[in-house]
């Protein structure tokens, strides 16, 4: 394991206009680790991701990616520094085919060597639908495409925002399986989701937010050991 984290948020404040949403948020993701970002709706998860990607300026604190201070950098530089983003709602490019979606923003990376062939091996469905336009795909296929598109940028850290929201249970299972396969290959993942059972199976560590602050963080074993945690921070 590397000494310095892939991603480190250090004392981040951020907000919209006069309304501060994040208060001194700090957490880190190390190489090969799967970390979740959890919390009820409105606790700041999406704001945290927006700030991480430079879409919202941090008013205090630092964001380090691969040890480099990326605070205040333009969004495309932050992503290019090693993050692969799978956005909420998938947001594939509707006027491109599946294949074109995959190659349009592809970046031959240094480390992991993701290629078209490997992405299609991970998601064979995408190969079957290679020449379909984006909107002709099912929700699950669009999600696979969004993940594949992010992998094609050869990220050090895959960031997923609500990747299984609105999908049928059987399709969800497919997505979780794919993420487990990525994890087994040693890819670091930061995942925002509400599906606690699946997250407990997949992740090493958990970051729980409440009202824009870090409320709890710890390992999967620690989270399982204290059932009151889930009730306190996650249940509606």
């Amino acid at each position: 394991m590397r000494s310095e984290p892939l991603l480190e948020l250090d004392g981040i404040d951020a907000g919209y206009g006069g309304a501060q949403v994040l208060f001194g948020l700090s957490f880190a993701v190390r190489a090969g680790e799967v970390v979740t970002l959890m919390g009820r709706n409105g606790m700041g998860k999406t704001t945290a991701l927006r700030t991480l990607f430079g879409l919202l300026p941090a008013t205090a604190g630092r964001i380090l990616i691969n040890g480099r201070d990326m605070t205040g950098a333009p969004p495309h530089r932050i992503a290019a520094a090693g993050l692969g983003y799978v956005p909420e709602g998938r947001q594939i490019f509707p006027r491109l085919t599946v294949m074109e979606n995959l190659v349009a923003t592809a970046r031959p990376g240094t480390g992991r060597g993701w290629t078209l062939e490997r992405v299609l091996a991970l998601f064979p469905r995408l190969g079957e639908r290679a020449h379909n336009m984006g909107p002709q795909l099912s929700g699950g296929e669009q999600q696979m495409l969004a993940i594949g598109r992010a992998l094609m940028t050869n990220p050090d850290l895959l960031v997923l925002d609500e990747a299984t929201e609105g999908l049928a249970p059987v399709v969800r299972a497919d997505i979780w399986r794919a993420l487990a396969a990525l994890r087994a290959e040693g890819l670091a993942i930061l995942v925002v989701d509400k599906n606690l059972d699946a997250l407990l199976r997949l992740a090493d560590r958990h970051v729980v937010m409440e009202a824009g602050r870090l409320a709890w963080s710890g390992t999967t074993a620690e989270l399982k050991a204290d059932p009151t945690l889930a009730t306190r921070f996650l249940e509606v």
Partner: protein
Amino acid sequence: MSAMAARLNSKPGLAALAVALAFLVALGLAYGLGSTYWMATLARMAALALSAVSLSFLVGQAGLVSFGHGAPVGIGAYALLVAGEYGMSDLLVVLPLAFLAAAAFSALTGAIALRTRGVYFIMITLAFAQMAYYVAASLSAFGGDDGMALAARSTLLGARVLRRDHGLALLAILLLGLALFLLGRLAASKFGLVLRAAKDNEQKVTALGLSPYGHRLAALALAGGAAGLSGALLANQAEFVAPAYMNWHVSGLAIVMVALGGAGHLVGGVIGAVVVTLLDEALGHYTQYWKLGLGLVVVGAALLRAGDLRRLLAGGARG
């Protein structure tokens, strides 16, 4: 975009060849009939199509609706005029010059215009084109408001190949075919994919680690350069250059051409240019208000769905 447009887009060579052949057949007919009028009209049509195709690349591929496409056309024309005044009239000099001058203008103004989006982009490109128009109108050494006649048409290695209109038409058809092929290839390349992805969802392209700014700037410069070539052809045809080349009417007409032909494929620009030129020739004989007729055609095309005459011409092919 229709499936047919997608299919055509994947075969830029075929599209370029088909268009060039259609123009050549028409030119052959006009030549056979000895109609200098139609040869001149075909030369103008192909030149206007070149400008419309380059705008179609911007609108259809990059989503950049420039309302100032007349400016690079006019700058190409002025490049020809100014070079001629300095004794340079060889095509091997003036064509690259027209291309580079127009591309430079488009890149410089584009660098600023690309900071805006949507309707603001439309307005700022119009504003830059108007500036170019007034600068040209104030060039008293080159005729100012009235414009100025060319000393002579361009030559090729000293040979007066453009002396007659069929020579000029051949050159225009060659450049149009080349533009269709090269811009089509570019649209199908990764460069084109990034442009189209950014047209759909710019923020997502950014979040995937790419800034589309450079791609868009390059597209603007390239399309501007092609428009400059169109201006050099038009100036040769009219043997006259005036600020009117950059008039906002001209920019607007270029958008009408693209909209009429359908922006989904570069060939749409050709179809739009042909239809507009024919309407101009047909109705312009009877009334100076021929644009009323054009307006009705545009409205009709819009009502017939998607403003896409290509769809009608293809026998209403679905997709």
